[in-house]
């Protein structure tokens, strides 16, 4: 059992990463990875939402009528997302403003519903919570890696602090405007998937 639980926690972080292996939740990973701060809060929010909605859905899994289960899951996810949004609005107003609509759009993040359908509905609450959390972390990790490169190359800053010294700019270095645009996030994501697939040979199709 312990080994299975460990597997539940570790699998989504590398071997079964929701973004780089399952390719879920791509839209938001393109949208909020321009700056590290936003990516970090987004990662945290998604982790909380996936964790809590998996937990709640797992708690009520035996009582959910099968025919309306998707709708019930959606209601639970929406509840969590609105709660996160409201709390951010009250206690982290600046960041909430920065993420604007993307917090609300966590509802449509395939990872959340995907984990509820695939895991929480057939497992006990505790492992479901862990599964949700670690999927959120797996998602967040990729987000932060992508955001790191995009902010560094696109704006020359990290977490808003300038890291590329002024003398570089004086010598003719320029921020790469392309990195700021969503297509570059897709390319970066492609590179991450490439690296992962060359390490993890079993993912390669014959």
């Amino acid at each position, binding site marked *: 059992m312990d080994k299975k639980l460990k597997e539940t926690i570790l699998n989504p972080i590398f071997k079964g990463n929701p973004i780089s292996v399952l390719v879920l939740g791509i839209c938001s990973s393109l949208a909020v990875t321009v700056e590290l701060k936003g990516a970090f809060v987004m990662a945290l929010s998604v982790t909380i939402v996936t964790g809590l909605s998996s937990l709640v859905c797992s708690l009520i899994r035996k009582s959910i009528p099968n025919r309306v289960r998707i709708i019930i899951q959606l209601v639970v996810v929406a509840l969590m997302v609105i709660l996160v949004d*409201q709390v951010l609005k009250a*206690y982290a107003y600046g960041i909430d*403003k920065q993420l604007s609509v993307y917090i609300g759009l966590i509802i449509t993040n395939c990872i959340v519903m995907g984990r509820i359908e695939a895991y929480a509905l057939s497992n006990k609450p505790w492992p479901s919570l862990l599964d949700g959390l670690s999927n959120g972390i797996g998602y967040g990790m990729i987000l932060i890696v992508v955001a790191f490169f995009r902010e560094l190359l696109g704006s020359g800053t990290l977490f808003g602090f300038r890291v590329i010294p002024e003398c570089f700019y004086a010598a003719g270095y320029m921020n790469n*405007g392309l990195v700021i*645009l969503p297509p570059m996030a897709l390319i970066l994501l492609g590179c991450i998937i490439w690296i992962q697939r060359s390490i993890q040979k079993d993912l390669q199709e014959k």
Partner: protein
Amino acid sequence: MNTNNNVYTVVYTTVVCVLVAAILAFVSQSLKAKQEANEKAENISQILTAAQFGEKSHWSEIGNDATIAFYTENIEAALLVNAKGEICGELEGDNVYSVSDLKKQNYAIRDNAEMALPFYIFKNGTSAIAIYGAGLWGPVWGYIALEGDLKTIAGAYFDHESETPGLGGKIKDDPAFRAQFSGKVVDYADEAAPFAIVKGGAGDKANAIDAITGATMTSKGVDAAINNWLKAYEPAIFAAASCCSGNCEECCGECAEGECTECTECAECETKANEEE
């Protein structure tokens, strides 16, 4: 128990919905005060930033209460003006227009309807006017601070809902873009565009600044917002400036309630008036 029963399904979904609605209503109510205070402090800090009382980050450092306190200490009057240039109200205490208020006024300007535009006048003579318009992906809004002569721009601050970060988002995030406004002069005589955000370089023009590279639509949106609102404000700005501007500027004394108390005593002005007649 059979969970696929029709009655059970209906009852179950109803209960879940009511329960979720109750939780949301409770949370929304209990966090409302804090959220509104945040929003108000945000709006005030934007006005103060435009009026050059401090950088935007300064206000988030000192917190909501200190920001609002600073505003109430330094504000002379927050007037509401209409399209005829008349004062049609006043915002008391620490009340300022919210973004949704600005949105309503933007519709009024567009439709030529009855409007009440905010006109923040500070004790140091600076005043701030609001602007609102459409960027590329969503609304853009902001404040333009004018110096005592109501022509020279002291500073500006802009915000947006969903412009592209790093491109259109620069209207808010790039201090260099905002810094361009300081010292520029609005040219009211230019009816088409009292102020311009120019693609490809504004050069030495006194009433123009450079647009943002790679953010043409956002720049155009801000440009249109500034000009639409400036034109709406024009009568009020003229009314406020009339007594102490123009050639009388130097000899004019106190400006009180739209009348210049000492202007008639000024020989130069009288000669000028006679000449014009």
